[in-house]
């Protein structure tokens, strides 16, 4: 098994210390940082997403895998920056105004980062104006809106409306969260809906044209 294959396996198993050591070994062996991301880390997280969709693993295993990937990325990022390598796609994400829940949103962040998106996480209780401001600043291809509470669904409606009418650069809007349905997404003019963090990656890639 090559070092990159071992690294991929360590990330998938959530072995953070192994992931860090194997990343260092790959660098020492002369692997290019971009290749380590593309050939080990991204495939590992893609496999994690697939196993999650098949109910073979659950949210905690996903987070542990992401933690291992983060250890690897901490080592790689200075090299990536030095080489001028940046993710091709950018996404802005946040939980809508009035809603303080972030577990679902955080999982999507994890999986999008795992798919090599640059993710700007605005946090929770995000007012529409902050989404607009972030779109203007970061020029993302994708915006993700999350809501856990039925009581904050109207805030999601308002956020989509304001993004659409604010004159900010064109952007795909994706929504999700426990009370959200495909029909609701259609009704409010969102471009996409994902039922869980695993399928959020597929939908995001399709929306930005990466699929």
């Amino acid at each position, binding site marked *: 098994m090559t070092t990159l294959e071992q690294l991929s396996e360590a990330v998938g198993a959530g072995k953070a210390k192994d992931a860090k050591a194997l990343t260092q070994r790959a660098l020492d062996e002369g692997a290019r940082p971009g290749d380590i991301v593309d050939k080990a880390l991204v495939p590992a997280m893609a496999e994690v997403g697939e196993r999650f969709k098949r109910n073979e*693993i*659950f949210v905690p*295993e996903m987070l542990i895998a992401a933690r291992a990937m983060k250890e690897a990325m901490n080592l790689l990022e200075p090299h990536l920056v030095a080489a001028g390598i940046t993710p091709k796609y950018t996404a802005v994400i946040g939980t809508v105004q009035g809603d303080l829940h972030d577990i679902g949103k955080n999982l999507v962040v994890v999986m999008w980062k795992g798919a090599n998106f640059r993710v700007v996480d605005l946090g929770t209780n995000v007012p529409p104006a902050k989404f607009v401001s972030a779109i203007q600043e970061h020029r993302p291809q994708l915006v993700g809106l999350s809501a856990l509470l039925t009581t904050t669904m109207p805030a999601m409606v308002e956020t989509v409306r304001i993004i659409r009418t604010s004159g900010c650069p064109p952007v795909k809007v994706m929504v999700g969260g426990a009370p959200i349905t495909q029909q609701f997404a259609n009704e409010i003019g969102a471009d996409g809906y994902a039922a869980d963090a695993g399928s959020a990656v597929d939908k995001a890639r399709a929306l930005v044209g990466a699929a």
Partner: protein
Amino acid sequence: MNRQFYLDLAAAGLRMPIGTHLILHGHADPQTIALDGRRLGAVVLETAERFGTPLAFPLMDLTLEKTALLLACGVPEAEVDAHHFTVAPPAPERILLTPRMRASCEAIAHVATRPDVVPIGMAIGPFSLTTKLMADPITPVYLAGMGLSAGEDPEVALLERLLSLSELIVHRYLRAQIEAGARAVIICEPAANLVYLSPKQLSTNPALFERIVMEPMQRITRMLAASGVDLIFHDCGELTTDMVRRFATLGAAILSFGSSRRLWEDAALVPKDTILYGNLPTKRFCASELTPGEVERLAQELVEKMQTAGHPFILGSECDVLSVPGKETEILGKVDAFMRCAYYV
């Protein structure tokens, strides 16, 4: 209270939502009422009367204990909502009840003046409260499940410390509600689910679930039993069958689960003197595709399946039914749809 009381309610075909939020927000000034114990108590009674039940469920608010604990730990009030602990705080010298908590206790006292209704208190479960105190509660839970101890991992140490503090504030608030006259309490433990606790990990290490969910709940159960107060246990999270099996051992008068559970199958796991309550998908009641007719059909189907299962059952909501601005009439219409179903059975 005599367990037969609840069994008789189920046998009489009681159906009811947990609907205090819905009724409260039909008033012009819900925020003001929530801080006024007497008026809040009147709304609780209005809700019980509106839905024809002697069970006076309180306003379900899972933020109260977090607020009280953080204020006691010296976190500024303006930062309470978004605050998460990164290092273990010392135990506060004393925990004061917040104005919202005091209003809830006064509401219970107001309800308790009525002999024909059961004043019910409420608290978040210790594990669920703990998850609200950490930015990422899932990872330390998993690490603890891997066998890492507090001495070995700072995240596990934080988890255990916060769980202990959570239990402290929950007991404090429960005692206040019991002193106010609560004869039953609903403990809401929605985070004890397969998002926070991996079934894959629990299959090899079930002791984790016992230690961080069941043991704190068992201590609450003993405290309630010593006070002659009934337990209503609520968990609307996605559960495994093993989790249901464990919750069934709590000796609750009523078990309330989310709509992901098939109650007619869970009936086999639950003692015959424990009512199963629920579990219509009320979190989706604001979705237009779920029509009142479909709600009525789901209710009918559930009632029939529970009758076939032969288990004491009260038809109701999977959680508290929240009032959504602009959707109030639609949601109430769907609640009325399942309430109507009662008369067809």
